[in-house]
């Protein structure tokens, strides 16, 4: 495998299905992790939900598709979609290039912000990645 370490910023919460969440004022931004984009390789398509969609925790809210694979996006917590990153339709490669920055996917207002505490910390997610990738 390649010799770089996956980026796992301390200021995010994580899911076992490789989404990240970052609190940004009253909203929470969601994207996929560096490990996820690396596993998928070149991403060519992102299917986004509509603004106003009510997300249920554990439900699929979109799809990320690469040359070789397709992966569901799973809502980590409940909330309303208040922003979608529509430029990703034109620039799906941003998910590969900058998964925690320009590659953000949606922003939601959570039903219950405390739900974030159920998610993985950076350290816990690092262990989760390591268990699967061996590093």
């Amino acid at each position, binding site marked *: *495998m*390649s*010799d770089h370490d996956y980026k796992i910023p301390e200021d995010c919460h994580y899911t076992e299905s490789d989404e990240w969440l970052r609190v940004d004022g009253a909203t929470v931004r969601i994207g996929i992790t560096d490990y996820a984009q690396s596993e998928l*390789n*070149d991403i*060519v*398509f992102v*299917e986004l939900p509509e603004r106003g969609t009510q997300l249920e925790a554990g439900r699929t809210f979109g*799809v990320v*598709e690469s*040359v*070789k694979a*397709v992966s569901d996006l799973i809502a980590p917590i409940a909330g309303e979609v208040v922003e979608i990153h529509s430029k990703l339709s034109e620039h*799906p490669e941003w998910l*590969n290039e900058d998964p925690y920055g320009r590659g953000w996917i949606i922003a939601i207002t959570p039903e219950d912000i405390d739900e974030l505490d159920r998610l993985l910390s950076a350290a816990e997610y690092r262990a989760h990645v390591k268990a699967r990738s061996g590093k």
Partner: protein
Amino acid sequence: MSAADPAVGLRRTPLWSRHVEAGARMVAFAGFDMPVVYSSILDEHRSVRTRAGVFDVSHMGEVRLRGPDTLALAQRLFTNDVAGTGLGRVRYGLLCLESGGVVDDVTLYRTGERELLFCVNASNVAADLAWLREVHAKSGLDCAIVDESDATGLLAVQGPEALAIVARLAPAGAKPPKRWHFAHAELAGIPVLLSRTGYTGEDGYEIFAPAERTVALWDALRKAGGDALALAGLGARDTLRTEMAYPLYGHELDRDHDPVEAGLERFVAFGRGFIGEPALRRHEALGGPSRKLVGLVLEGRQVARPGFRILTPDGDGVVTSGTFGPSVDGAIALGYVPAKFAAGAKLHVEIRGKSVPCKVVSTPFYKRG
């Protein structure tokens, strides 16, 4: 190619350690642990289209036929014209069952007056050998069938700069073989069969080398190519061949589809008495096959994966290959549809419950310039 890895039961080509050292993502393919991508499928694809790339395809099989009746046996087995394949020439064709169904798609190398070499799909080596031996046994023809797969490494060097890179390893003044020709040559002191063929739509070579010299050849090529020669994995190999609408066995071809349905008539030399010919001729009497392999361009960038339904007013078709085509900048697919839908027809592909519009187009998808 050979050595088994007892831990996972996957076989390794001679270049396995080179791939791992290069950081390749490895996947199981046809029983081998193979590099699918080193860095980025899109980058590797574009490198092959614009400069050059090298692929390890040592997993592919090589079967030699040798003996006084070699040509007669090959003509029974192979849909294309064997007798017309002169010494030093390569032909693509199919091995068919009596039903016309495809046992494998192969290249035939006319290596001698009484000898030839089939290069076959890795996934089919055992099935091909069984079929060749069965036909041979019934024929009473005098011909030996030798599996050289484990003893042979195979590299593909493809792209506009491929010839120049390989020329650096050849003796001064050595002439490159013409397209669809091959030569016994020496590269970096290694005896090879240098074939001006490929599976990418680009100019270049497929180079057969002794298994134990394949690592040395790889290293020499990388040194000669420098930055102009990208390592390319099976992922890019698949996007490149899909843009060219080249079939892949197990996707477009299998024992339930025949070469006429797959649109490969130009590789079928009728009138030569190969196995399956009467079945293929039957299409003619019926006014053509009822289903045909077509190329599809999809609206948007969603990828139609193998097995997805193609919706037509005359019943469902099925996607056999689909990808994002980096050089055509869009989602493309191959699939079987009722034969009446020719280029221009507007259909739909069902992708995760949604009906995505697509158009039947003439292939290849990628046309240079």
